[in-house]
C-alpha cells in the first residue's frame, strides 16, 4: 500500500508543479499572444491602407446565415474587415478578407484586400506550404507587384499552394460580389 501511495503522491506532486508553472507562464504571456494576433491583422490592413482608417469586422464561420445545406458558402473566409478611410467629403470604403485554407503540403492564411471590385493586394499571414517560398515569390508577390495580370495561371512551381491561394481569392471575390459590390467604393 505504501508503495502505491508513494507513486501516487510523486506523480501528483510533479503534475501539480507542472500545472503551476504552466499556469504562471500562461498568465505572463496571454496578453502578448492576443496582442500579437491583433497586430498581425492590423499590420496587414495598414499595409493596404497606409493612411488613417477605421474598421469594423464580423466573423464568418460563426454566422449561420452563410450556411447552405449545412455547408459553408465561403469555406475559406474567417472574417471580413470593412475599412473606412476618411476623405475630405465622406469616406472611402474598402474590404479586407481574412482567409485560410490547407492542403497536404501545409496551410496558407491570407489577408485579401478588395478595392474597386478587384483584388488589390494579398498579404500572407501564415504560410507553412512545403514550397512556401516559391509560392510567395512566383505567385503572390508577382500578383502584388503587377507582373501577373490575374490569378488564373497557377503553374508557378508551387501549383498546389497556388490553387488554395486562388480558392481563397475566389471565395473573397464571390462574397464581395454577392454582398458589397452594389454599395460601390
Amino acid at each position, binding site marked *: 500500500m505504501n*508503495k502505491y501511495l*508513494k*507513486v501516487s503522491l*510523486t*506523480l501528483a506532486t*510533479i*503534475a501539480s*508543479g*507542472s500545472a503551476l*508553472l*504552466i499556469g504562471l*507562464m*500562461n498568465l*505572463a*504571456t496571454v496578453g*502578448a*499572444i492576443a496582442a*500579437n494576433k491583433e497586430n*498581425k491583422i492590423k499590420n496587414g490592413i495598414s499595409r493596404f491602407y497606409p493612411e488613417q482608417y477605421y474598421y469594423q469586422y464580423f466573423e464568418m464561420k460563426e454566422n449561420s446565415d452563410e450556411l447552405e445545406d449545412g455547408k459553408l458558402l465561403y469555406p475559406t473566409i474567417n472574417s471580413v474587415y470593412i475599412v473606412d478611410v476618411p476623405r475630405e467629403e465622406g469616406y472611402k470604403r474598402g474590404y479586407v478578407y481574412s482567409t485560410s485554407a490547407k492542403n497536404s503540403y501545409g496551410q496558407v492564411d491570407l489577408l485579401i484586400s478588395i478595392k474597386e471590385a478587384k483584388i488589390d493586394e494579398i498579404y500572407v499571414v*501564415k504560410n*507553412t506550404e*512545403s*514550397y512556401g*517560398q*516559391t509560392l510567395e515569390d512566383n505567385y503572390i*508577390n*508577382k500578383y502584388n*507587384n503587377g*507582373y*501577373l495580370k490575374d490569378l488564373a495561371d497557377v503553374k508557378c*512551381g508551387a501549383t498546389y499552394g497556388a490553387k488554395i491561394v486562388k480558392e481563397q481569392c475566389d471565395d473573397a471575390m464571390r462574397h464581395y460580389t454577392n454582398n458589397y459590390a452594389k454599395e460601390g467604393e
Partner: protein
Amino acid sequence: MSMDKIKRSQHKESFLNGILRENPLLVQILGLCPALAVTKSLETAFGMGLLFTFVLVSSNVIVSLLRKLIPEEIRTPCYIVVIATFVTIVKMFAEAFLPELYSSLGVFLSLLVVNCIVLGRSEAFAGQNGVFDSFLDGCGNGIGYTWAISLMGLIREIFGKGTLTIGKVFNFFGDPLVLPILKSTTLDTNGDPLYDFSISIFQNPAGAFIVLGLMLAVMAAITNHKKAVEKAKERAAKEAAKAEATLVAGGAK
C-alpha cells in the same frame, strides 16, 4: 591527481562531449526529424536550437534534482511530464515574444516532448548524475545540436533560396536584411531576379537529406583522419620502442 582536478576534468568532459565528440546530430544521429524539417533558413534553425537547449538544460536539471525521489516504476512518465512542462513553457514564450519563429517551427516545437535527445539525456545522464554535471551536459548537447542544425540551415538557405535573411525571425530592429548571395534581389521587367543561381531542391525535404548526408560524410572523414593519425603515431611509437630495445640488446651483447 587530486579529487578537485578529477571533478573539474569530469565537468569539462560533460560539457565538451556533446559539442563535438558525441554530437547528438552528427555523431549519434539523433533528433533527425526537426533537423530535417526546420533547417530551411539559418534563423529558424538557430531559434529551434536555442529553444531546444533551454528545454534540454531545464529538464536535465529538474530530473537530476528529483532523481532520488522518483520511484523506479514511474521514472519515464515523470521525465515526460517534466519535459512536456518545459516544452509548453517554451511554446508559450515563443508564441508571445517570437511569433515569427513560433509560426516557422509549427508542430516541431511541440514534438520536442518526444525528442529522443531530450529523453535520452534525461534517462542516460541526468537520472544518474549530479545537478551541475547534468546542467553542463544539457548545455554541451544543446550547443552541439544548435551549431549542427544552424550550419544545415545556413547551407540550405544560401543554396536553396540564394539569399541570406537576417532579422526576419528575430525581428527586433525593423526590416530584415536580405543578402543577395546566389540570387539577385533586384527584379527585371518580368518580375524575375536579375540573376538566380539558387538550387531549389535544397529547400525541399530531399535537399535536407542531401545536406545532412554531406555533413555526416565530412564528420566521418574528420573522425577517420584523426583515428588514422593516432594509429600512425601509435605504430611509430611502437617501432621506435622496438628499435630502441634492439639497440639496447645489441649494446649489451
